[in-house]
């Protein structure tokens, strides 16, 4: 496929890896923000191509992983109602709530449907005027334009049986929360290329300056990631802390202005709780008052529901780059993708699931060797 295959070229990847080795003189810890990048890194073994001084930390950029427990509980409560058709992206279905996940609701007869796009959910609402159709609107800035569009259209076309359960999060406040934490280890960032395709990257300039960290907007294919790491290491070695753009073929400095315009029309910035991290101020999106009628929490009277996490899961530390998945005692034993204790094991883009899928044998061998 054009614009995909050429960025997976093995020989070019080797040249980038050698170039990184050539310029690296000291140990550096670099965090890739987005779960899609984590998945690529572990799948293609990009971390194993790098010199030993470079440590890649896996960041919080997986919306499935950071959706708080109480939102999952709200989803299962709404989905269990007989009048509801609950629509969601597929990877939210196995995220464990307090008492089960959306798959278990479906198994008990709930009408839970996997959709590819929020527009599919709006179409289902039009086709089923006698039912309540709810879309689980999760995501980062990348997904916000799609979710804003369906709310805007539902309002314009008076699709009264449609609503959204919103759990939208924003990247820059999360980066700031990581950088200001006392146990922060991250010295440079690969920012998420598709988030920046929508939002641009000017928001990152004050962060790079305030915390003196290089931030490189980076794509998702192996060569993108290797080039992003090269650019980041070169800044670190030079003592620079600038925002650079590796993913030039998709990201413009200002982002996608028509998309930002509709997002701003439909959503406002609100505080959000991140699973495993806690509440981060001004880190999420919620519906504006004008669209409050499409808020599923209000429609089903569950806005006030709250619950505290109680689990041995260390996903919070994994999401902040403080620990690696295999440092968890439950990893690949009590916690597997089939029976996850926490969300980083659920999503394909969660660091724990990526390690389980691509690194389990290495990790198990290492654990066995330590035990000997």
């Amino acid at each position, binding site marked *: 496929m054009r614009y995909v295959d050429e960025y997976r070229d093995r020989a070019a990847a080797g040249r980038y890896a050698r*170039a990184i080795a050539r310029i690296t003189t000291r140990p550096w810890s670099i965090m890739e923000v987005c779960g899609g990048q984590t998945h690529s890194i572990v799948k293609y073994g990009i971390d194993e191509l790098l010199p030993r001084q470079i440590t890649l930390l896996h960041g919080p950029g997986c919306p499935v992983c950071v959706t708080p427990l109480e939102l999952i509980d709200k989803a299962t409560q709404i989905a269990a109602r007989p009048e509801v058709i609950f629509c969601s992206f597929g990877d939210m279905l196995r995220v464990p709530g307090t008492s089960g996940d959306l798959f278990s609701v479906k198994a008990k007869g709930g009408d839970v449907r996997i959709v590819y796009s*929020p527009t599919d959910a709006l179409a289902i609402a039009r086709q089923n005027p006698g039912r309540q159709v709810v879309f689980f609107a999760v995501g*980062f800035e990348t997904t916000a*334009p799609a979710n804003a569009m369906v709310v*805007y259209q539902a309002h314009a076309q008076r699709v009264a049986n449609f609503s959204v359960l919103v759990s939208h999060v924003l990247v820059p406040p999360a980066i700031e929360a990581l950088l200001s934490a006392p146990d922060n280890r991250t010295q440079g960032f690969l920012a998420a290329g598709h988030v920046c395709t929508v939002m641009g990257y000017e928001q990152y300039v004050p962060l790079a300056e305030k915390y003196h960290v290089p931030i490189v907007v980076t794509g998702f294919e192996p060569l993108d990631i290797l080039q992003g790491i*090269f650019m980041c290491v070169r800044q670190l070695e030079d003592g620079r802390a600038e925002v650079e753009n*590796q993913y030039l*073929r998709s*990201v413009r400095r200002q982002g*996608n202005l028509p998309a930002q315009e509709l997002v701003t029309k439909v959503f406002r910035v609100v505080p959000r709780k991140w699973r495993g991290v806690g509440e981060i101020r001004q880190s999420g999106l919620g519906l504006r008052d004008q669209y409050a009628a499409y808020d599923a929490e209000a429609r089903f009277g569950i806005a006030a529901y709250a619950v505290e996490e109680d689990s041995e899961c260390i996903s919070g530390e994994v999401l902040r780059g403080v620990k690696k998945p295999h440092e968890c005692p439950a990893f690949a034993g009590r916690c597997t993708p089939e029976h996850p204790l926490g969300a980083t094991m659920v999503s394909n883009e969660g660091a724990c699931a990526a390690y389980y899928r691509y690194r389990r044998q290495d990790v198990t061998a290492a654990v066995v060797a330590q035990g000997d």
Partner: protein
Amino acid sequence: MCLAVPGKILTIAGDDLLRSGAVSFGGVTKQVSLAYVPEAKVGDYVIVHVGFAISIVDESEAMQTFEYLKQMGELGELEQTS
């Protein structure tokens, strides 16, 4: 979750927020909203996320990853020989 895939626009229909088109992803064709890429034309490649095109692929910038490598290679050889 933020997975987005490049595809080639085959047809375009509708206006403004209802602008959409058929986009080919390596031979598999899907209907995609083009509302957020108003300047996109038939034949352009767009980056598509959950059924919405979020950018037009810049063909000249797409080569930059390989040109960068070329420049770097020359630079590296210079460093090694000096």
